[in-house]
């Protein structure tokens, strides 16, 4: 990632606790695991959703259906972006009709990714509800979107970058605050 590290916001322990809390909140708010389904937004939402699924399994002994969503084809900025627009596989191995879908992503920023994800999910069927879980909410929304489950609210400036690192992709579990290089 490009930028200079300013501080570490979370270490592996903190991230584990956040995942555990969000998992409990999801089950509490929905009064159980009935009709729940987790969908991780690629890339880092995917391993995070998987961890929430494991955590729920540990305390409820229920395996919540798990899917992965790639939103590239739903982006509103395709003609402007110059990187990261590689299309990856969407894998939703269950019928989302009538489900309470929990979208999972690492950082909530402008809200545009979530807008794309909502369109993508709705193209696959008609869920009963869609809720959003994120590790970091960093503000600067450009659309009327909010998260139902937030690991940590971090006020940031536009020049800063939040990097959520997960072992599956980045070899470590941590959340870093970086400053864009001038």
């Amino acid at each position, binding site marked *: 990632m490009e930028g200079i590290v300013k501080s570490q916001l979370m270490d592996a322990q903190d991230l584990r606790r956040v995942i555990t809390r969000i998992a409990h909140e999801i089950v509490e708010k929905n009064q159980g695991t009935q009709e729940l389904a987790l969908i991780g937004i690629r890339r880092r939402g995917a391993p995070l959703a998987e961890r929430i699924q494991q955590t729920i399994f540990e305390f409820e002994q229920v395996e919540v259906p798990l899917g992965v969503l*790639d939103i590239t084809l739903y982006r509103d900025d395709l003609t402007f972006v*110059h990187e990261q*627009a*590689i299309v990856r*596989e969407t894998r939703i191995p269950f019928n989302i009709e009538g489900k309470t879908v929990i979208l999972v992503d690492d950082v909530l920023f402008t809200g545009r990714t979530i807008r794309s994800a909502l369109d993508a999910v709705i193209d*696959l069927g008609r869920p009963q509800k869609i809720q959003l879980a994120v590790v970091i909410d960093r503000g600067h929304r450009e659309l009327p979107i909010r998260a139902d489950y937030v690991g940590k609210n971090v006020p940031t400036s536009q020049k800063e970058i939040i990097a959520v690192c997960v072992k599956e992709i980045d070899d470590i579990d941590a959340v870093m605050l970086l400053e864009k290089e001038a």
Partner: protein
Amino acid sequence: MKWQRKDLLGLRDVSEQEIQFILETAKPMKEVLFRSVKKLPTLRGKSVVTLFFENSTRTRTSFEIAGKVLGADTSSVTVAQSSVAKGESLLDTVKTIRAMQPDVVIMRHPSSGAAEYIANILDVSVINAGDGQNEHPTQALLDMFTLKEHMGELAGKKIIIVGDILHSRVARSNAYGLLKLGAEVIFAGPPTLLPLEMKTLGVQVTYDLDSVLPGADAVMPLRLQMERQQKGLLPTLREYNRVYGLNLKRMEQTGKQTLVLHPGPMNRGVEIESDLADSALSVIEEQVTNGVAIRMALIYLFVGGSANDVD
């Protein structure tokens, strides 16, 4: 590396990395085809024009479906209904199409090199949907995609292409592509339809199909055009069928579960028998589905994600 190609004219000058990238991009596209709602907003407001100077139902339809699933508007110009039939030159036709502001032009033409000719005129991307005896890159890409789905990486795999190699743009594009992915490619066919110069591509060439069948991972019979017999290139279709026609019995010689591909349309009873075409070894229908996915990937890369990083 970045996806910066303006056109896809053939696989001759496309790198292995680019081929793999196209094949990877086609995977998520294929998933979309199995949804109940086969429509993406990705290329909303973009215009895809198919310009076909030769008969083709499946390739043209495949491109049209691909564009439509991605949300683009597709328009087709077919030669019989167009002013080409009134004597318009290729240059004038292309200039007219250009004035209609398409975002990508897909062309099939009976002359080798026609795709390159129009690519030099147009600022927008051109995808070659078959030009004369030169190349048919999207067919080769869908063949490679189908092979990879069944056998994983193609390095070291033995793939035999049988039949009228001389007139086949499918054979040429497949040779370029498959060799780049490390496969062993063998051309088999009668001497009149299999020029020895093909060896310069890096493929093996043989007139004796049965001698190369043992160990083959995939066999692809090409469509034998009936006119070839009238030109004296074949004694009879029956003799062709006896020596080069594929059937279940002949396929036993490979000693393994060998995949059978066919670019279509098939002449049942000539290059392929029904017992084989409709058997479990045949992936001919999958090729058609994969063709749509490959064309979606290409239209997306050219129109939507033109400056994308390849990681």
